[in-house]
């Protein structure tokens, strides 16, 4: 009658989406020196994924292994991150977080409603019973990030 596992499924799928976003995104090389060995995925705020993150650190992006970083609030550490997931718990701090990432080649993702319109790059959006996303491509370009056109085609909306 009740299905708590539904939520787990959604979190697992979201984590898999994150990897795909990274795979189809190109960062400016100057911010990503060749001697860098890892790709940092940061989660700002309460971690909604938990066990869904299991196995992520076994995966690679552009030959670099993924390292997870947790942060309560944005800090100087974030400058080194390539991908930042903003948890729903940070709804009220959204402006501060986005002004911090503004202009930096950091790909921001969130499931907070209106995230892309507010200046985030990927926003998860549920369509019927499936997960999809909105891309703020003009923001991505301003930050020097290039998003592959196949990803843009799949988005339900490109800003």
């Amino acid at each position, binding site marked *: 009658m*009740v299905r708590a596992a539904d939520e787990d499924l959604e979190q697992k799928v979201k984590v898999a989406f994150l990897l795909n976003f990274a795979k189809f995104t190109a960062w400016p090389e100057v911010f990503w020196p060749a001697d860098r060995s890892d790709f940092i995925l940061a989660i700002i*705020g309460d971690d909604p994924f938990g*066990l869904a993150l299991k*196995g992520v650190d076994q995966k690679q992006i552009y030959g670099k292994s993924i390292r997870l970083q947790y942060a309560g609030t944005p800090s100087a550490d974030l400058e080194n991150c390539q991908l930042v997931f903003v948890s*729903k718990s940070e709804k009220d701090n959204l402006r501060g977080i986005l002004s911090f990432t503004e202009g930096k080649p950091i790909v921001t993702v969130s499931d907070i409603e209106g995230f892309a319109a507010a200046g985030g790059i990927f926003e998860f959006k549920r369509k019927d*019973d499936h997960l999809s996303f909105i891309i703020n491509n003009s923001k991505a370009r301003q930050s020097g990030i290039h998003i592959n056109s196949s990803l843009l085609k799949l988005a339900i909306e490109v800003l």
Partner: protein
Amino acid sequence: MSQSGLRIVMAMMPVVLGLGCLGNIYAASGESNEYLDLDITQLMNIKVTSVAKKEQSLADAAAAVFVITQEDIRRSGVTTIPDALAMAPGLQVAKISASKWSVSSRGFAGYTSNKLLVLIDGRSVYSPAYSGTFWDAQNTLLEDIDRIEVIRGPGGTLWGANAVNGVINIITKKADQTQGGLARLGAGNQEPFMFGSRYGGKISDTAYGRAYLTYNDHGENVLKSSDTDAGDQWQSAQGGFRMDGKPNDGKEWTLQGDLYKNTGDQTFSPFWISQPPFMTTLYDEVNNKGGNLLGRYRQEIDSESAVALKVYYDNNERDDAVFKLAFNTFDIDLQYETKWGQRQNLMMGTGYRVVQGDFDQSFQVSLPDRTDHLYSAFLQDEINLLANTLWLTLGSKYEHNGYTGSEWQPSARLLLKPAEQHSLWTSVARAVRTPSIVERYGRVTMGVFPTAMGIGTVTFTGNPDFESEILYAYEAGYRWQARDNLSFDVAVFYNDYEEIYTAMPQPSPTGYDYVFVNAVSGTGQGIEVAVDWKATSRLSFVLTYSYLELDLTEDASIPREAGSYLLNDSSPRHQGSMRSSLSLAENWQVNLWLRYVDSIQGLNRADQASAGPAEIDAYLITDLNLIWTPRKDLEVMLAGQNLTKGQSFQYISEYSTPATEIERGVYCKLTWRF
């Protein structure tokens, strides 16, 4: 440890050692997120929510529901299913001895507590002999449990008779969620040996399977009266498998089965015999074994309707000094759900169950052999009165059983969601508990005394006119997701009981009989609260509180020595618990569980002649454990149970188990995933 225990340990050794060699391969853990390798179009095709009634989310259930997740079980350090149930509000869980529990919902506690339906993956496991559950026979691998849904209040409309005060749904993981291997090995003073193993693999492109084996040795506690060994140690061994397949979209099947064998010591005191000195103490061994096979098939007919078939066979045998029983159950169940127009969701089903019970008679207990047929059908309609805001669910189950004939169990439920974060619900339902074999046709010896003619006996005697117990339940609740990391759940209930069972003393040619009669009625009311707060990403809390007030009175014809007046005080009025989990450094975690249980009155039926009610003091149980994860695939747990006091006295069995105090337990456990 017993001889048989040792043999099993020896047999396991090669398996355990074999795993050691594999440990060097630092492969991804079997539990890792299985969606990581999918590409984006595949991900976009995954359904993350379902319209189906059966897959409703917790916030949308118009009932008092609490879910115990696998993570809750892992962090709690519990070693048995009934111990895990103590996490849910509204339930009364007390340990009587190492292998015996009193588990009830909203009152009516007891070893023979009988108003709760317990299902494992849809298979009913309460015993038709007395309508209660032999908890020592339910030992699936704890690591395989996906979740335990605890529904307080009547569930008769969907689940049928015996779901009077609650339903416990124990749901194991699908096979695709348990790929890879797991081995668990542990030892402690109260848990001398704990072993669990599982291996899961892919059977074909669309099917997964797993097999498991578990063996646990549980140590003995002490007698309250003498502080000596209570003779309650027991060993449980169980193995099984589960296969799940999804041949294509919309088709799903499951085949699973278990085999188990448990051996335990138990003490009967007093144990009544037909010769002088009549009243004795018996140190006995109880053996139970059984097996089951369950198949399920579900097919979506179109995007709006689905049909599901479930079939199972269950065998269980129990053998001790006073009774020998064997049950063979066959159950078949067909369900259909469909959308009807824009606003209605219909669910209907029909089922047939045959239960064949064989009993060996003894001087102490006698039950007749029986074969019972149960036919059932149900219909439920969920109507969306206001789009995405207000739902009304109406339904009823109809059952025909061999004892009372036809039984109707209707319910009406209303759910209001004024906003995404708020759910308000209310319901009214009728539920029945149909008679068990002992209440209709049983005989249980409760006393023997010498007379001029030979011996006289006091017995509990079945009554062919015993009817169903009836409940009218009125419930309401509110769930509030205040923030993403903070939620509240409150449920209130008012229960109106009729025809509740008690025993009426009547002179008989050989002494006197306590005859089962439907002669207690009254009300139960209470409130249950659960608060879930993930304070930070490292620290989380779950708080629960339950208040229960029973006001039951027996008919004027029932004399006081029947003891039914004690029903009001045999379940704790206040219960509270706090569980907290703190992640220290990257791979250390501390879990604390405090549980307060109010004082109760107990009555040892066996001592009925001599002893009156016994007061059991309020107690606080402290469980504390430390989990260390030195590597991704390895987990070490050091757990302390029942730490507050060296011993706790939780319940006095109305059956003949002498009063037993549960000892402090400490164990260390290693879990390896590969």
